[in-house]
């Protein structure tokens, strides 16, 4: 039998029922973190959590201490007695790991007290509650168990589970598999993973990872890199690529999974000239940190006890193997040359927005939103590689209106040091196409196009889910 017992937002009453699945620490975290908008918590016991079963059979079952192989699930709803999609905020599972007991959890950002609007990497997961099929949009999260898994494993697991849900190319990986990386010393009790090991785990999951480090001197002190590292973090988030991030001074790993809303636009525009990267408008990035409930934030400034951008000094990007061109090279070596000779943006104040996307997603966007038949035709009929880089340029007014005047499409599978890296350059009312070295220029009807926005899920303050 399965027990389904309904509670209000009364976690102490739930603790009385579930006992050591919810020790004081877990109770405190949930009490402080869950939204007051939750009106019903439905307890489901027992629940077979595939991720906990994996670590249980591979490790915990070998221990002398009694541990349950079953988990318990708590489902969260906005209204009582209504198991319907419109009410559902997701679930957390509780496992019998004694201290760090919160297991696999898929939560809507609005299930949390700290919710703020923003742009998130979220995947859709099917959940069945008492025979009712529901769906939850979430970034996968759990606490480390402290024995088999540590923060680095949880960060990789979250990133992998996001991709495996979105793309059939990536298979679902369980925690024991993830922790089973090459190491000279014993694997359990786990002490974590090195940056290199994290990249290896991702490689073994069919990713082609790249590692970036924030500039530092020989003593490890942070050197001002003009915002280059933060720009890389933002660019990959904007590309819908959640990444593993390392905090070397804290020896901690998290996943970076979204960004907040534009908050300092006027100030940045006033203080800067020439090309202004849109990354400068974002003072918050959304992270998945196993030390806190999901969707906490890192800030570009000191903000209570939260992480700051400069705490993050490593970025491990899980590229698809066909994403050869990376953002570092694009920003420092390629864009300045195209801006100088092709766009001729000599000192002009323009906002630049750069991101990676699939050509299918791009074409689908153009088909829906382009108002210019010539532009639409030229883009939709152009043979493109699976992945493309997009660099968009807007005046400040155009940026506010989500419009762009120039757009360069780069081949993400480009050969190094070859100049024919671009597929098309839209420069106001002209478009230059480069199809397999057949270069032609066409005149467009208008000068602006809609800004490309497709990779992230916008979660706003509007009522409901």
């Amino acid at each position, binding site marked *: 039998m399965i027990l389904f017992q309904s509670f209000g937002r009364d976690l102490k009453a739930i603790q009385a029922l579930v006992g050591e699945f919810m020790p004081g620490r877990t109770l405190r975290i949930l009490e402080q973190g869950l939204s007051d908008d939750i009106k019903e918590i439905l307890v489901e016991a027992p629940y077979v959590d595939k991720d906990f079963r994996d670590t249980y059979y591979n490790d915990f079952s070998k221990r002398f201490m009694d541990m349950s192989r079953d988990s318990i699930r708590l489902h969260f709803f906005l209204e009582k007695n209504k198991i319907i999609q419109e009410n559902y905020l997701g679930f957390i599972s509780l496992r019998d790991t004694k201290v760090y007991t919160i297991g696999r959890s898929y939560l809507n950002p609005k299930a949390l007290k700290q919710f703020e609007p923003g742009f998130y990497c979220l995947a859709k997961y099917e959940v069945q509650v008492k025979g009712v099929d529901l769906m939850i949009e979430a970034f996968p999260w759990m606490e*480390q168990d402290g024995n088999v898994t*540590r*923060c*680095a494993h949880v960060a990789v697991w979250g990133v992998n589970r996001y991709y495996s849900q979105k793309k059939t190319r990536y298979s679902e990986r369980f925690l024991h598999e993830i922790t089973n990386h090459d190491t000279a010393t014993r694997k359990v009790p786990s*002490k*974590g*993973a*090195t*940056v*290199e090991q*994290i*990249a290896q785990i991702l490689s073994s999951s069919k990713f082609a990872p790249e*590692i*970036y*480090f924030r500039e530092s001197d020989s003593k490890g002190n942070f050197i001002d890199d003009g915002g280059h590292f933060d720009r890389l973090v933002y660019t990959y988030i904007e590309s819908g690529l959640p990444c593993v991030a*390392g*905090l*070397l001074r*804290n*020896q*901690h*790993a998290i996943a970076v999974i979204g960004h907040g809303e534009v908050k300092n636009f006027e100030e940045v525009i006033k203080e800067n000239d020439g090309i202004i990267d849109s990354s400068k408008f974002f003072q918050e990035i959304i992270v998945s940190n196993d030390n806190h409930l999901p969707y906490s934030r890192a800030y570009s400034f000191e903000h209570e006890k939260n992480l700051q951008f400069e705490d993050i000094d*490593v970025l491990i990007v899980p590229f698809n193997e066909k994403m050869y061109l990376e953002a*570092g*090279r694009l920003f*420092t*070596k390629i864009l300045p*040359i*195209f801006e*100088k*000779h*092709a766009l*001729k943006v000599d000192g002009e104040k323009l906002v630049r927005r750069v991101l990676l996307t699939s050509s299918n997603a791009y074409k689908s966007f153009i088909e829906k939103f382009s108002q210019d038949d*010539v532009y639409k*035709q*030229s883009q939709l*009929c152009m043979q493109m590689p699976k992945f493309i880089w997009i660099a968009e340029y807007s005046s400040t007014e155009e940026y506010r209106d989500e419009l762009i005047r120039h757009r360069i499409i780069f081949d993400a599978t480009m050969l190094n*040091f*070859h*100049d024919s890296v671009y597929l098309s350059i839209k420069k106001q009312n*002209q478009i*230059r196409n480069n199809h397999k070295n057949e*270069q*032609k*220029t*066409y*005149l467009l009807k208008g000068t602006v196009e809609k800004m490309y926005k497709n990779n992230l899920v916008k979660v706003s303050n509007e009522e409901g889910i």
Partner: protein
Amino acid sequence: MNAIDMILSKGKPLQDVELAGEEIQLEWEQALAAVNDEFESKAEQFLRDERVQAAKVVELSKLMLG
């Protein structure tokens, strides 16, 4: 010309779209030639920068995270 090129030459996906005038075409050709020249002149430097970057990644990747 391969079989696919042959089909494309008959179909011409952008056949109804008018090309820009000769002056504009020429301007673009000059601009893209300048792009090409700068790429060529900087290729060595790009390679050197990337080697430095790669060495740094190898050195720091041994660091432990939680």
